[in-house]
């Protein structure tokens, strides 16, 4: 590339200004990366939800329970393959800030319904045998430095006292995006220790259907089965359930889009102004280039190229910093966003966005440079 020297010499003409412009891109793309990660973390449950899974909650609210006795009646509905139940525990490990989701699970059915959350067989058998046994997601185990065999005390909230658990296993997600932050213990142990008013009740059911195409019909059948009962149900696909959960947090997507748009619009103005100044300063030089035989198109591409190089450099730095942040620092909420991951796809989209901003902001000055008349430009010197 014989023009490389010319392009880079112009680019590095004002090193401090170049640094600031690249810095603007880097900050914007760093922010973009983190916002995309947060958005992804919120919507990840929706994206990875099983197409063949339904969630049944109390029609009033998810915090209202359902009777355990519903389980057999639900299993009798044609098309239901397997069902499991869970309760939210909400205990505190050492400090309230150490949040992670704790569930009382049904050991008999958990793996049938959630086969993607994998526990080594020997660890699972030890867990089943130990009434105080627990299984932690790999992310949570890593976060607290737990290893199999550790004793983990968790202070109950609605269930009083300190609950002692023996960590018998660590699960991993079969897919990268699976949630590895949960903490499971036996539902029977939960049932044994909770106050009487909570006994015989579950938080929600999750079931698998034989055929995902029947999910709508089955959901309707379940809700009809329990209509006009003291515990009416609301059954929906796991995806819809996850989406509803996200919605409770507010319109995250809108918020992120708004912040992102403001950042990129500001970046557009900053870069556009920088490029305009850079072109204005070099009016005579651009005119000389044209005088010695460089075409208008070359001058346009030269200016545009500088803008794009700044965008790619700054954008790349910002995205790498964001990636580094997600890898080294991880989820700053310590568990609220279990899937805190900047994917290659998101990074590519970010770089594409940086290139687009670079192109748009460089285009007006580049067209100005292209249209520059040598005679006029030299007269101004």
């Amino acid at each position, binding site marked *: 590339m014989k*023009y490389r020297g010319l392009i880079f010499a112009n680019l590095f003409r004002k090193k401090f200004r170049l640094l600031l412009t690249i810095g603007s891109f880097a900050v914007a793309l760093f922010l973009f990366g983190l916002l995309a990660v947060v958005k992804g973390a919120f919507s990840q449950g929706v994206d990875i939800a099983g197409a063949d899974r339904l969630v049944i909650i109390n029609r009033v609210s998810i915090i209202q329970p359902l009777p355990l006795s519903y389980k057999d009646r639900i299993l009798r509905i044609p098309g239901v393959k397997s069902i499991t139940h869970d309760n939210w525990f909400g205990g505190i490990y050492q400090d309230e800030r150490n949040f992670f989701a704790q569930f009382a699970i049904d050991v008999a059915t958990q793996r049938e319904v959630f086969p993607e959350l994998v526990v080594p067989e020997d660890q699972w058998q030890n867990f089943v045998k130990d009434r105080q046994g627990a299984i932690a997601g790999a992310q949570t185990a890593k976060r607290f430095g737990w290893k199999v065999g550790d004793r983990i005390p968790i202070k109950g909230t609605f269930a009083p006292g300190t609950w002692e658990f023996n960590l018998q296993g660590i699960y991993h997600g079969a897919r990268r995006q699976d949630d590895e932050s949960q903490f499971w213990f036996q539902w029977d142990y939960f049932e044994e220790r909770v106050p009487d008013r909570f006994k015989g009740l579950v938080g929600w059911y999750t079931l698998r259907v034989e055929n995902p195409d029947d999910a709508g019909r089955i959901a309707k059948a379940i809700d009809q089965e329990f209509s006009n009962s003291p515990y009416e149900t609301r059954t929906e696909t796991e995806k819809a359930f996850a989406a509803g959960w996200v919605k409770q947090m507010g319109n995250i997507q809108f918020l992120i889009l708004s912040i992102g748009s403001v950042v990129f619009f500001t970046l557009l103005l900053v870069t556009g102004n920088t490029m305009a100044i850079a072109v204005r300063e070099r009016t005579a030089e651009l005119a000389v280039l044209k005088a010695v035989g460089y075409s*208008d198109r070359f001058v346009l591409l030269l200016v545009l190229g500088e803008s794009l190089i700044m965008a790619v450099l700054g954008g790349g730095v910002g995205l790498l910093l964001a990636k580094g942040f997600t890898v080294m620092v991880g989820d700053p909420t310590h568990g609220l966003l279990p899937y805190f991951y900047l994917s290659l796809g998101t990074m590519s989209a970010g770089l594409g966005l940086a290139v687009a901003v670079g192109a748009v902001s460089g285009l007006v000055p580049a067209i100005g440079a292209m249209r520059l008349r040598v005679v006029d430009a030299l007269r101004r010197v």
Partner: protein
Amino acid sequence: MVRVDGRGDSNSLIQIRGLDKTYRRGGEEIHVLQGLNLDVGKGEFVAFMGPSGSGKTTLLNLLGGLDVPSRGKIVVDGDEITHMSGNKLTEWRARHVGFIFQMYNLIPVLTAFQNVELPLLLTKLSKSERRRHVETALGVVGLSDRMNYYPRQLSGGQEQRVAIARAIVADPTFLLCDEPTGDLDRKSADDILNILTRLSTEYAKTILMVTHDPMAAERAQATLHLNKGVLVEGVEAAAGSLA
């Protein structure tokens, strides 16, 4: 042989016939050049003198294809440039014209070598061939030892010599010099004029130079005077036309 009567040899390198250039400023029409004729042969060194606003630089711009005339034609080495499209004119300029400006107009972020190399980047020459050409051009102007210097590290005279090297490196058909010594002290100006004279005599380069400096004009083989857009030959003729 330089002629301004429009009766020059058809083999002249540069032929200008009935050249007009009119600008509009506000509602007023300003006739910068009026019915100008000129013939310049290959290897001739011609100086243009005249008061400010007489049209010297406009004539140079038209000859260099940087501006288009209102009427008339310019033929250089058989190519009529007056009707060329913008792109063709740009290509033509790259092959045929070497510009030397009063303010040197070097690119400050490039070394002397890189500045001189600029016109060659448009050619198909290899990197080693480009290097050879640049070294030769810088050798002609006596700056072989300053190749890696930036313009800010050079004196005004040296900068202008780099500009001359840039103008000659692609071996153009003719050189257009707009006040090449206008920003230099006497010693540096003499050095520049020596180089231009040598380019004309030793290398048979055709040079058209605009100047206000009578000593610079003396170096040329012919001096033409422009007054109110009209070209006249020789000092006496100029005096007559001004009278």
